[in-house]
Every structure is written in structure tokens, then in C-alpha cells.
């Protein structure tokens, strides 16, 4: 029996990229296949597993993460507010105060750093911005509610990032501040991506994603994913690749005549 420690180590590392619920079977397939590969090419063969695992990760329609399970806007904001409150509570503990503002840092430098941080907060969205869906005209109440939700979500997300780094600075020192911009960008990207996956009317997460069309036929038709609002407010068409015809997500509003198709939706429509 040939030793395949290196190959198995590569496969195990690659398996971390695969979705958890498919990881065991994915690993079993690659391990069984590598058994047949000549030892001279086995390591190279295993490197392809990373690409395969990434593909699986990108195309996994499996269970959603904790954050995307926060279906309703109230649940989402409550979760973020809880996290932010916990972060602020921990950041106020005496042990986590000193490292962020070392004695060598004068008040002027501290103020300057805060000003730069604030500026970067304002500039960060420019680096993270992704086109929102084309929602067509929506009632002003819906638009207002959507923007209030975005603003609150952004504020909580940035507060969580700030508190997290503040607490982290206790362990690693002021160098934690260096992670402020990247962490803010990740948080803002999450805000935008989450918003793109929500119904513009009720702000709940869209469900039942269905793949439409084929990549090879995109010249005459679009292909991508169609999700729907479980309350029957509409459908969201998300093209897989932005083209000149379909460069952004498009929202198709469904009026009340469609409500009979959505079980229990009639009473839930707002």
C-alpha cells in the first residue's frame, strides 16, 4: 500500500473549501480517485481539488449560513443589534481599554487616526459598491423603509467591526487598527450583498432560487438565477454574467392577482 500522506493532506486542506454538508462525500471521491493515480503525478492531481471544491462552494444551493437565515428585517436588525451591544459591553471592560490608546500615542495622533478612520468609512463604500437591482418605481414608503433598513444595518455592521477590533487590540495590540479598513469593506460588502437578496417591498430574504437558461445560449437569452419573495411580492432575476442587455438584477413586481399562487400569502401581503 503506497503512502499518500501528502496527497491526503492536500485533499483535506482543499475539502475545507467545499460546503460542509457535501464535504465527506467529496473527500471520499477524491481519495478513492487518487488511489488510482501514479505516485509521480498524485500531488499535481490533488491540486485540482482546490478548483473543484471552489466550484462546489460557488454552486452550492444547500443550507444557508447563519446570517442569511435571518429572514425578516426585524430578525436581522435584532441579531446585529445584539452583536453590537455585546461588542460594546466587552469593549467597555477595563482590560480592553488600554491597548487601543497606548501612552506613546498623543491625543492629537489619536484624533488624527479617528479622522482618517472616519474618512475611510465614508470612502469604503466606493470600493465595495455593487449595482443594486433595477426595481422600477416603487412606492415611496417602500423606498424609505428600504433605506432606513440599509442605514441601520450599515451602522450596526460598522459598530460590530469597530468593537471587534477594539477587543482584538487587547490581544494583539494597536496593530489591530490596521485591520479596520479591510474589515469595514467586508462588512459593507455583506450589507450590499444581503440587500440584493431581499424583497424591496417586505425586506425579507428571497427564496426558492431557480437556475434559468444555459450559458451557451446567452447570446439570445439571459441565463442566471430567479428568486422569489415567499409572500408573493415579486421575482428577482439575477444574471450570472452581466451583459449589455442584462447588466444588473431586475425586479419583477407581481400584483395582487398572483396572490392565489402563494400559499397563505394573501393574508401576509403588506
Amino acid at each position, binding site marked *: 500500500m503506497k503512502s499518500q500522506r501528502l496527497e491526503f493532506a492536500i485533499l483535506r486542506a482543499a475539502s475545507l473549501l467545499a460546503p460542509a454538508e457535501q464535504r465527506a462525500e467529496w473527500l471520499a*471521491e477524491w481519495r*478513492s*480517485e487518487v488511489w488510482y493515480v501514479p505516485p509521480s503525478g498524485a500531488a499535481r492531481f490533488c*491540486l*485540482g*481539488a482546490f478548483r473543484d471544491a471552489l466550484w462546489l462552494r460557488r*454552486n452550492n444551493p444547500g443550507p444557508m449560513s447563519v446570517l442569511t437565515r435571518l429572514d425578516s428585517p426585524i430578525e436581522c436588525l435584532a441579531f446585529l443589534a445584539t452583536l453590537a451591544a455585546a461588542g460594546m459591553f466587552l469593549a467597555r471592560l477595563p482590560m480592553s481599554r488600554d491597548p487601543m490608546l497606548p501612552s506613546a500615542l498623543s491625543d492629537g495622533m489619536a484624533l488624527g487616526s479617528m479622522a482618517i478612520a472616519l474618512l475611510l468609512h465614508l470612502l469604503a463604500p466606493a470600493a465595495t459598491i455593487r449595482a443594486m437591482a433595477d426595481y422600477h418605481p416603487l412606492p415611496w414608503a417602500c423606498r424609505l423603509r428600504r433605506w432606513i433598513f440599509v442605514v441601520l444595518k450599515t451602522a450596526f455592521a460598522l459598530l460590530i467591526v469597530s468593537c471587534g477590533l477594539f477587543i482584538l487590540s487587547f490581544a494583539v495590540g494597536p496593530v489591530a487598527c490596521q485591520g479596520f479598513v479591510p474589515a469595514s469593506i467586508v462588512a459593507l460588502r455583506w450589507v450590499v450583498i444581503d440587500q440584493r437578496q431581499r424583497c424591496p417591498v417586505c425586506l425579507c430574504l428571497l427564496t426558492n432560487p431557480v437556475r434559468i437558461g*444555459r450559458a*451557451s445560449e446567452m447570446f439570445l437569452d439571459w441565463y442566471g438565477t430567479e428568486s422569489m419573495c415567499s409572500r408573493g411580492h415579486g421575482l428577482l432575476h439575477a444574471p450570472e454574467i452581466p451583459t449589455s442587455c442584462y447588466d444588473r438584477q431586475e425586479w419583477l413586481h407581481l400584483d395582487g392577482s398572483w396572490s392565489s399562487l402563494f400559499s397563505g400569502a394573501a393574508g401576509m401581503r403588506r
Partner: protein
Amino acid sequence: MADTAKLSHTSAMILQAIGVGYIYGYTVMEVTGLPSGTVYPAMRRLERDQLIRSQWERQSIADAADRPARKYYKLTRSGESALEAARNRYPLLAKLVATEELEDA
């Protein structure tokens, strides 16, 4: 939408390989000359599009041969029609991955 899928060269080669009997991922790699990082994601894509289907062989068969059980792939009905369309589209496909090679192997 057309009845049969239009395949890329890579997908057509993999479909042809599976169609003539190279039913394991590594054997598809060997016969097409494509790297593992191309073949396995492509096969998953074909499976997602229901052109092929995968199945684990019975453990007893693998145990009898003293080797790990393998996952093998087979064409579905729509995969067969897609392959037929691809063969018409790429006439050299049948020569690239021919049945004789399998018999020789």
C-alpha cells in the same frame, strides 16, 4: 430554448469520454488529457445540468478487488442527445475519444 444543450469543447470531450465508457473521473482525465482542476468541476456542471449522473459502486465489488469504492458517471437521456448534437457539431470528437482506445486499455 433549444431541445439540446450546446456544449463547450471541454464539456463535449468529457461527455464523449463518458459516453464511450470512461466512467471514472481519472480515466476521463487520462483520455482527454485535461487536468483534474478542469475535469471534475466540468463533470459537476454536467451533472447539475442533468446530462450525466453519478453513482457509487457497491462496496462489495471494491472490497473483492481490494481497492476503494469509486464513483462512476453515466450519461442521462438528455446527455445522450446532447452528445449526439455535439458529435454533429464537432465531427472530430468521435476520433478524439474513440471506443477503440477503451478496448485497447
